[in-house]
């Protein structure tokens, strides 16, 4: 197991280097705005642009740029500086991470707490009105555009522009450390929006998976043992049915930690997603590179965690 984890981590690092290299390549190959010109502003003299290009290292061959970038990360843990604000990418990311973390973790709790019980109840009450209603609603949530859902919630329930003044609206986010209560209330609507789709997907997934599990022989065995139905469902059925959910949960959380652009924009939460999006628009390559790398790290780590937790969830799985 330990060697497996070490091997996975090493592969993960290789993967991250590849992702970085690809990001470099994308910016080089595809037509995008010239960062030096953007940085210099219009009307700037060719000398100024050349100077900026030199200062940013853009006049070097792409592989040299890449090697320097990698050196900076590995030797100095330096992810470069924004072309615009000159702020260090690392500081920008660490500045934005708490918001993204809050958004993701809270949403994950919401979608697990809603998706899992709904999935279980639907599976157990399969075919009933309850099941059909729940699955119908889930379908609506799955197909609802996040942007629209977010705006609708704001127009309905935010305490500034809403029809019913209930929850804090857009731009109300505050850090957990500055005010836990405001932090919590400001994130209620974003959590609902971000969790909505996932809750629906998870409930449908778990329902299917649990229906399948409840048809297994070991469920019959559990019942034949005289176990209470609740225990049969939870300890025997859900225990098996949850594994695919854990897989996508790990990947979803990993992906969301890389930033949820739309939700962050609609609710004006300064997270990683918005940082990345703005950087793409500005051709602020160091930030794009940093956030892409960060997202890749989260996904790689999430994958490793999923695989390891799989070994704990399913004792038949063994890695070597």
């Amino acid at each position, binding site marked *: 197991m330990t060697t497996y984890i070490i091997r996975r981590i090493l592969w993960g690092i290789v993967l991250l280097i590849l992702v970085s290299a690809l990001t470099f390549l994308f910016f080089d190959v595809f037509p995008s705005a010239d960062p030096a010109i953007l940085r*210099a502003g*219009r*009307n700037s003299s060719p000398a100024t642009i050349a100077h900026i290009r030199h200062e940013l290292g853009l006049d070097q061959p792409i592989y040299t740029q890449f090697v320097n970038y990698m050196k900076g990360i590995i030797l100095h843990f330096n992810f470069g500086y924004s072309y615009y*604000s000159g702020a260090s990418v690392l*500081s920008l990311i660490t500045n934005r991470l708490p918001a993204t973390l809050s958004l993701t973790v809270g949403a994950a709790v919401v979608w697990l707490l809603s998706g899992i019980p709904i999935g279980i109840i639907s599976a157990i009450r399969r075919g009933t009105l309850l099941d059909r209603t729940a699955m119908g609603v889930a379908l609506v949530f799955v197909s609802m555009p996040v*942007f629209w859902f977010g705006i609708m919630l*704001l127009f309905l329930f935010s305490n500034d522009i809403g029809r019913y003044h209930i929850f804090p609206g*857009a731009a109300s986010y505050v850090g957990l450390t500055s005010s836990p209560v405001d932090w919590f209330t400001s994130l209620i609507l974003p959590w609902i929006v971000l969790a909505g789709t996932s809750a629906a997907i998870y409930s449908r997934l778990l329902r299917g998976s649990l229906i399948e599990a409840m048809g297994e022989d070991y469920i019959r065995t559990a019942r034949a043992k005289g176990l209470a139905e609740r225990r049969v469902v939870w300890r025997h059925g859900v225990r098996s049915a949850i594994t695919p959910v854990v897989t996508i949960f790990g990947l979803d959380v990993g992906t969301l930690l890389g930033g949820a652009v739309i939700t962050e924009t*609609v609710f004006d939460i300064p997270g990683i997603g918005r940082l990345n999006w703005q950087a793409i628009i500005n051709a602020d390559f160091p930030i794009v590179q940093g956030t892409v790398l960060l997202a890749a790290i989260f996904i790689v780590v999430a994958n490793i965690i999923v695989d390891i937790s799989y070994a704990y969830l399913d004792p038949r799985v063994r890695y070597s």
Partner: protein
Amino acid sequence: MRRSTRSLAAFAATGLLAVGAAACGSSSSNSSSGGGSSSASGSPKIPLKAGENPVGQQLTGKKKGGTLKVYSSGDFEHLDPGQSYYALDYALIQATNRPLFSYPPNSATTVRPDLATVLPTTSNGGITNGGKTLTVHIRPDVHFSPPVNRAVTSADVAYAIERGGNPNVGNAYFPAYFGAGAPAPLLGTSSKSWKGGPIPGITTPNKTTIVFHMAKPGAGLLLQALSLPISAPLPQSFVAPLDKHSPTTYGSQYLVATGPYMVQADKTGKIQGIGYQPGKSETLVRNPNWKASTDFRPAYVDRINVNVGGDATVIGQQTLKGSNAIQLDTPSQANVKLAYQQYPSQITFTQGSGDHYVALDNQAGPFKNVNARRAVWAALDRAAIVKARGGSLVAEPATHFIYPGVSGFVQAGGYPGPQVDFNKNPSGNMAVATKYMKLAGYKSGKYTGNATVQVVGANSGNDPAIIQIVNSAMTSLGFKTHVTEVDQATMYSKYCGVPKQNIDACPTVGWIRDFADPLSVLYATFYGPAIVPTNNSNWSQTNDPAINAAMQKAALVVDPTARAQAWANVDKMLVSDAAAIPEEFGNQPNIESKNVAGVNQLWNEGTWDFAFTSLK
């Protein structure tokens, strides 16, 4: 001279306003009730804020104190007056800095002394040597914010300007108004031996006097250019070490102020992570060293919280329905409609937010022929473009290049523009177009050549619709076209701004003045010698000797009235030459909360002036 990024972003927001504008289609007819405004042809054609249009707006605020909340979906680019070149940035810079001269919010054309004590003229001895020397006296009683604290001297202004030539600062307009590219460069800047550092053409005989020397009579232009943020003083001892970084960390890490407000900072003047959270927020607090007696800015509110980000529709609603708030960037079309219908006292429209035009390659391809250019102009449905841009509230069909609010607009014909047959009908006139195609040598009135017209435009917001309209004008005349849509920055940096790419038509380029002087609208965009191989702004590659000569002459006119007339003549020449096809004159919509007495600054695209806005 600014490329019109802001306006584009502004108009880009949504697609709803066309509907909104149609719903209030009678707006131009009832606009006459809009209160006493300026001259006939320059008068606004749209209903402005009830009883208080920005031209005649009250500058006296309602209440002193309070916190103004500013919503902006986009962030500032630079807080450093030396680096900034963006309308959004200027809004913050104007509240935190004291350039030598400034425009009061209700004037787009007349500067007044700011850090300077008096406006230099020939009669008061400020302009001497036939307009080759400009002498400015500055106030002795303006101080830097902490941690510098000391009084501003003329050397601080000299340093602020000279660092514009430092590549680490990379001021975008330094070359055009002060350096080698200026009609009248400051002495020394055009010599090859000058590699930055103190500018020989700037002298500071004493702590309150700064003198600008030129070889040509450029004082008329320079005086206006000194209203740009670059003339705001900076303490060399504090800033110079930061300027050694590339890019400089002044503005991103550290900042000091001379204006009524300062970005909240720690004891060392560091702002990042304190009053400046890139992409998140900016906090402006009162500058403790600012004295109201030295400034014409009333600075009513105590604090300004800028909240960056969010969806344009949401923040617009927050502004309209909330309190103490203004939206800094352009409201979404949906919200413009909503505000216009339901919150009429909370929306203003200011003229002169820039223009867009179709740049046609004057040097090569089918549009080398002036009559072919005139033909496309005649065929173009500019009314449709206005509609696509958001309707008559935010745009007017353009007839020439100097746009409303820029001096020379009236002299060049006002809204109707110079009298030529191909700009007369805003919806296009195929008969006229055919006439010019025939004059261009196409007997059938249709293009019969083999060339394919290369069209490159921006792919966001309303721009694709504009490309469509322009494209159909060209194809209706028989041109075969190939359209490429890319993001706006790429359009400029890889296609339209690179002459050797041979792009025949760029239908979504735009321009915003730097200040009200017509040179800042026409010079970089149509002056032949200004053509450069990359990062070019003369997208149509206009290089007509007669026009170039006229511009050279007009650039050096010192008297304001004569200057306006001279540039109006250049404008007429450009129209006659159909150097490009003006599409629309933009108006800037602005929204505010009910309890905000907002003041718009007319000279800067018409957005809010923080230092004049107050709470009710």
